[in-house]
């Protein structure tokens, strides 16, 4: 028999988490699928479950000094409707699932899933998003890319709960988010691409480029992005093939049932080239 807990408040949730290491379930849209059984029997959780979807402390969302804070209990639908949320994130959230999933599922759950194919995670990488991990001993903040350590693996201690996601302030003049799937909505993507750039006086002032589902984790390179900073249209034109080659060397997708490695790689580079060429035109 599975043990389940329904704490009254966050403090109690953290205590139960420390004492039992019960697995937190907010929306449940991932866990209920993963531990489902087939035809007529009940889901089979291999561990105790801690319900946190009703905790009001986790349901806040709003701008603060360090950026947009999204509580771990905030649903994807609520983020989609939040005007302060970055455009690319809202697009990713609305395309990733049908309303009945968005209405239950949370971004925190999506991050904890640690899937290299998570569409929202690709965008969060590009946005430099951070997560707040809280336990009875205190809280720590880590970047999403440090939090996700591999497919399905994450830096979460067994007494911690993810309580908040922080998206630092930033403005972009160029936003490109593409989810390439077999079908549009409600499908896992073959690959996703998120590129953000800000230009100032004809030069690149900020740029972030992230590729989802092309490696064990989302691919993003500070080194290459740094090269792009300060470039004007001519510089960028001269460096198009070098940048292309940089990413070519970094992207190592696999074959799976949704796509082939060779396709994922080619499309990643096609979308990169297109983004950079458009940038050249608009610089």
């Amino acid at each position: 028999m599975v043990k389940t807990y329904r704490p009254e408040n966050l403090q109690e949730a953290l205590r139960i988490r420390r004492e039992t290491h019960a697995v937190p379930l907010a929306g449940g849209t991932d866990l209920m699928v993963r531990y489902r059984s087939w035809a007529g029997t009940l889901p089979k959780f291999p561990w105790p479950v801690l319900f946190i979807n009703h905790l009001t402390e986790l349901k806040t969302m709003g701008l603060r000094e360090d950026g947009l804070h999204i509580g771990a209990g905030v649903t994807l639908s609520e983020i989609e409707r939040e005007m302060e949320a970055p455009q690319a994130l809202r697009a990713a959230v609305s395309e990733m699932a049908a309303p009945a999933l968005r209405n239950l599922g949370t971004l925190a759950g999506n991050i904890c899933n640690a899937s290299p194919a998570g569409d929202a995670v690709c965008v969060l990488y590009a946005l430099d998003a951070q997560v707040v991990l809280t336990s009875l001993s205190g809280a720590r903040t880590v970047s999403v890319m440090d939090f996700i350590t591999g497919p399905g693996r994450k830096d979460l201690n067994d007494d911690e709960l993810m309580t908040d996601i922080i998206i630092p302030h930033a403005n972009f003049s160029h936003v490109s988010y593409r989810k390439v799937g077999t079908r549009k909505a409600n499908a896992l993507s073959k690959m996703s691409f998120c590129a953000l750039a800000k230009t100032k006086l004809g030069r690149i002032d900020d740029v972030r480029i992230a590729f989802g589902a092309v490696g064990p984790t989302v691919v993003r390179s500070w080194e290459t992005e740094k090269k792009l900073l300060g470039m004007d249209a001519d510089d960028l034109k001269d460096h198009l093939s070098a940048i292309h080659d940089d990413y070519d060397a970094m992207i190592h997708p696999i074959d799976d049932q949704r796509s082939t490695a060779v396709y994922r790689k080619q499309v990643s580079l096609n979308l990169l080239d297109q983004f950079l060429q458009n940038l050249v035109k608009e610089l």
Partner: protein
Amino acid sequence: MKISCTVNGTPRVFHAEPHEDVQHLLKREGYISVRDSDDAEGFAGSDTILLDGIPVYAKLLSVGQIQGRTISTPESLLSGRKLSVIQQAMVDAGVVQSGYNAPAAALLLSELLERDPDPSEAAVKDALSGLFNRATGYQQFFQAVEIAKERMKDPDYATEIAPEFRDDLRVVGKVRPKIDGTKLVAGWKAFVEDMVEPGSCTLKMLRSPHAHAYITDIDTTAAQAIPGVLAVITHLNCPDRYYGKAGQGFPEPSPYDSRMFNQKVRHVGDRVAAVVAETPEIAEQALSAIKVTYEVLPAIFTVDEAMADDAPIVQNGVVEYMAGAPDDLEQYNASAEPKDGKVVIQFPIHADPHRNIAAGAHGSIGDVDQGFSEADTVIERTYETSQIQCTPLETHISYAKMDGDRVILHASTQVPWHLRRIVATALGISENKVRVIKERVGGGYGSKQDILLEDVTAYASFLTGRPVLYHYSRKEEFIGNSTRHPMKITVRLGSKKDGSITAVYMDVRANTGPYGNHCLTVPMNACSKSLPLILCPNMKFDVTTYYTNIPPTGAYQGYGAPKGSFALMTALGELASELGLDLLDVIEKNRVRDGSLLEILKCLGEGREGTPAYVKSCGLEPALTEGANMIDWGVKEQADDPDVMIGKGVAIIQQGSGLPGLDHSCADIKMLADGSFMLHSGGADLGTGLDTVSVKFAAEVLCVDMGQVSILSGDTDNTPFDTGAYASSGTFFSGSASMFAAEDLKKEILSSAAAILKEPVEDLALAVPGKVVSTSGAELTYWEIAQETQAGLGRGQLVGYASFTTEDSAFPYGAHFAQVSVNRLTGEIHVDKYYALQDCGTPINPELALGQIYGGSFKSIGHTLYEDMMLDDQGVCQVTGLRDYGVPMISELPTDFKAVLVPTDDPYGPFGGKSVSEISCNGAAPAIANAIHDAVGIWIRTWPMTPEKVLRALGNI
């Protein structure tokens, strides 16, 4: 644990297991409209409820999440028996057909309209983006929302829902609500799962992990020792009988090549053992306690592997013939392996099981060699189609119970009578000991023609005396179900410079998988439903079907036609391109037309001599003209995005209307004491509206409103025989039987009235609303006639009866046009426009006919572009759910999607009607292949036409 929440306005306290999901809870508490189509995949939406007013999937919700919250189920939409505005609008728009998750759709749209009384098309798409609908596609939901929106402002709002036909008729050809629409959209008891009594047992199946193996040992002792396990059935204790599972008429053109369980397993997912237990949990526990030892054999998965000289033999058993055995049979069987069992062939079908050949067919007209030598250009191309799934929303289900010594089967089937025959055969009892009750079918599409689980469910109940339920999981649906036969089709076309075709050769190599269900007829259909589209004096075909170890195949809407059409119509496009001619001109030069004699059909009987047929009605000319206009044929379109190229394509298609000479339908109709009518039809309405067709025919003939005619259909105890709903036979065969039964009753009514009025019968006629009028001015109401005939000294209840058979054919035709955008960076293909123009003779239910066309076209767009049952190199299906399999959802709808009815009046069809549904599956693949070529100059010759294949063909990978 104890859960307090509010359901549909009532505070409730439930006792639940802490890990129970909310769909499970609601269903067992009687909220039966909250169904499950995906085993908690969060995809199909049949389990949609509102939680505090917003839509969620109940199957993904744990009971721990609903404490103190408010739940609304589709039951909340009703006021008493009255449908809500959106529910009624859905029925009126024709979008409720098989209707399994129609209640969920109504709930979603109702929530949308509450939020936004004037929703945009995008808002409707978003609201329904988590709802899967296979039967009608999604197009008519927009219309339902429009109607509901207006009726919310003005309850009397009326609009033209669909064009109407035949001014000379009152109900036939007119838009009328489907007669079971209300009960389906309301979520009332309708499906097999709704008939299950408390205390019923569960059957679960242990399935083979190997693609090809002998079971060398199977130990069920531990499983049988588990308290609550009632029986374990294996190849060691099952009935020792071979029987056909194809659900066809007897004698079947499919071999009997399996028993209930076999010592040899032939695909991953093949039956190994069935457990019958008190609960699903005990059944699962018992499954894991069965110990099986396998001797694994090399396996084959493709036609090419099956053809190899040293190929492993899938069916290496003793071959027997019920008729027409070859002289060398004894010698042939010398190499047979007893562990492989038997292959019992009913009559010769060119089978050679020991060389993996399940069936074959060969034929020709004219002289093809001569034809090719006269050609200026000859092209030869090979096309491949993939294995695809029917994916009904209601997964396969069977519920059996005993009534004394009789087996009662509640079935979701297309073939109640074949099912009765096959179950009786399997159990070794006579047919009177079996009763099949066809319930509403939550999607069939062919897969509910095959007998996939009813035999073992019936036997389980027969053995244990207990009611037994077997309900497939979605995972089982992918490995234990009939699918479309993969085919490799080579087409050779010879043509003059001007595009006149001088010779056609078609070589069809089909993959039937482990068993030979439909192994002759599906592949033959690839020829018989495509070659007659072209008028060419020289034609030849070779059909060969191979056994392999892929998951089983069988019937699927369109049967062989979608594959034959894909090959032949794409080849026609390739020929036109080769000749530098316009495809539409080439089609026009060669196509079938009114009055054509289809000589090739003489070689294409289903295992018997065929008959050439004349085309008595053909709407291709108006269909092609109108379609070309709609899509601006010949005009090259430019996209805003420089990386996107646009192209247009077309295909002409055909089907049949049942199987003349093979199909047989019966009906009777009785006058009740007040002059209303009870119609008993053998027809199996699988959601398409066949019952509505039958009622319309009876009401039309008897001059009454449809409300005066009730129908019972598909119950083997209470309705007369019918071969079933397959091969597009519903309207033409079952409908004709209802029409002629009503005609027969009409004679009875007139002769009774003549006797009562003492007037000559020639002076009498039926008149609306339900009376007999005489040229003398005398009148008798049906009430008066019924009172008189059923009085103490009356002549007895008036009954009409008909059995309908025919040798005449009524071919439906169609032209499908597609416009696609192809993205050169990603290879993505988007269908911008899809126009399906179809001639179904007189459209009997115009709005339902449109729904069938939308549904068939859209599912075949899915087959063409997305759907894929990937197998790994061990034959394990990598797909366990609808999401990964890739069924098209509302977000994939063509931007502009139109189904158009092109009426003709067929002399053989009832009220001029022909079939409409199956043919809709035949156009998408070739129309899209031709459009892709027009866009970017590449030919994609295999399904699915993925972005990868596009980039590869473009040389980008």
